[in-house]
């Protein structure tokens, strides 16, 4: 029994990491808390299901989902966020606006019923180990999440693009002075963050299915991860994703009435005790 919960937590944690890694990148570099991140996840879920249903191979379906979210994100960043750069409040509000538009857009295209797809055929088997059942798909999700974490780490620490990203986080003005275009950097970052959210959504679809409201269901969870792990920190997001994944799976079982309290109280406590350390500006 416990092992099933463990696997569930790990899978969920993996999904949360993919989702929140995008959020952390966007916040880390652009200092925008992207409240449309859940919506981009939802776009990925719907596109992923659509692709799977149309018989597209799994890997391509994931890319299509990520790509759709990335395009949406890039357009939004260039057309909207860029014009209000520097005004933090306006940017957050703009992401809320995007979330509303995307939410209804999905309703318009796919209607109000949950939109389901099966896990890809190859992964529809399960293993029996230690007296518990392991659906291969869930293991695959976890593997993909960990691989992505490794790839992201490589990208950021070991490539030139990554170096530019890190430079942008450390000192944006200097980065600009060195001739690295900030607008291009920002659009790229937002697109990459959206891509990750879209892929996460597509991976999640066979498990949670795509449905209206998924955006605002998943967003608070992503925010908990991000706060616990540190708003711009990928490593923190990685660790926190699994903690939150575990709380989300196990919480309702152990403390049914306090399931959400268990999730959000740590977030509130962290904010109360270490607001500066994790998020930057506290009240002067």
């Amino acid at each position: 029994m416990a092992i099933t919960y463990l696997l569930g937590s790990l899978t969920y944690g993996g999904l949360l990491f993919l989702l929140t890694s995008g959020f952390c990148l966007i916040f880390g570099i652009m200092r925008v808390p992207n409240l449309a991140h859940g919506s981009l996840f939802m776009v990925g879920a719907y596109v992923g299901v659509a692709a799977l249903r149309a018989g597209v191979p799994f890997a391509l379906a994931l890319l299509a989902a990520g790509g759709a979210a990335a395009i949406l994100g890039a357009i939004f960043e260039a057309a909207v966020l860029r014009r209000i750069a520097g005004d933090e409040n306006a940017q957050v509000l703009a992401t809320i606006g995007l979330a509303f538009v995307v939410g209804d857009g999905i309703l318009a295209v796919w209607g109000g019923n949950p939109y389901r797809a099966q896990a890809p055929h190859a992964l529809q088997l399960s293993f029996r180990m230690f007296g518990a059942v392991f659906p291969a798909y869930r293991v695959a999700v976890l593997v993909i999440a960990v691989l992505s974490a490794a790839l992201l780490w490589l990208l950021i620490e070991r490539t030139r693009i990554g170096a530019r990203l890190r430079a942008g986080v450390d000192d944006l003005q200097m980065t600009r002075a060195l001739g690295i275009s900030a607008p291009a950097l920002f659009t790229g970052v937002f697109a990459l963050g959206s891509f990750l959210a879209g892929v996460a959504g597509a991976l999640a679809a066979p498990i949670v299915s795509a449905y209206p409201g998924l955006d605002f269901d998943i967003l608070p969870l992503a925010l908990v991860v991000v706060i616990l792990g540190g708003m711009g920190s990928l490593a923190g997001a990685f660790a926190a994703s699994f903690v939150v994944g575990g709380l989300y799976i196990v919480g309702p079982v152990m403390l049914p009435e306090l399931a959400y309290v268990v999730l959000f109280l740590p977030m509130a406590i962290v904010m109360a005790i270490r607001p500066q350390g994790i998020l930057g500006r506290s009240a002067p």
Partner: protein
Amino acid sequence: MIRFALAYLVVVAGVALGAPNDFYLSFATRLAYYGVYAMSLNILVGEAGLMSLGHSAFFGIAAYCVAWLTTHGVDGWTAIAAALALGTVVGMATGAVAVRVVGTSFMMITLAFAQIAWGLAYRWVDVTGGDNGITGITRPPLMAFDLEKQSHYFVFCALALLGVVFILDRLRASALGASIRAVRDQPRRMSALGYNVWAIRLAAFTVASVFASFAGALDCLQQKFVSPATMSLLDATMVLLMVVIGGTSSRFGPLVGAIVVLTFTEFSGQFVSRPRAALGALLLFVVLFMPGGIAPWLERGFVALKRSLWRPRAGAGAAQ
């Protein structure tokens, strides 16, 4: 202000007597207390400069308080008083923690508290009824009036809104109101002048939560139903939209915003087929091109209209 109050009373009477049926009266009632709700949030967003994503918690907690008490034998007025008291206590407690930070941190901590409240409403089924909510609520008697009649309840809520407008107007013009705005604009300077910045923000937060609680109580009695939905993140963003679209620095901004948002969502079939997308687009438009919101623009139009309709008087009438 007196002229506004008189004009307002005329409009209220007109609506109460002339509305074709209860549907429109209900809508008008909701406009009234959502006006209170939006104005309460504007104390945080506009006056204190704190963007809250969790204001719906106070609305919902008060609604549940009234619902639970009235379905357990407590009379409606006592229930409302209890809801206000609860709102004050919860507001002060959560505010004490939340206003230690600003900006994104404040947004996240208010969101966390609202999610906790929502989660309790959703999961603590024994008390809250979970997803099914609480039903069977009745409105209390008020002297000669029968609040169960929608027209009477509408007038009650409309008068409540007027009262709130007056109170908040006084607050805005007072020393405390000036301090709240000053803390928003120059917190370091205010500290250097001896003001307790945290305490002032806490005062704003508490006042905002009390008025949101009042709105929630009115909502419970209007809908005769409460559910966790009013405390969802979606609803919290909706009321934020009202404030921003209407305009944070204009006195009537939140009211205008409430009217716009509710009209879009209520009459979604009729003239806007996708209310949320429309509101999202409107929000984007406001953020990009009209950061002060719609209300200042409407006010200017209204003033220009007045000027063109009335003959100029000696001494040149000044706009309000």
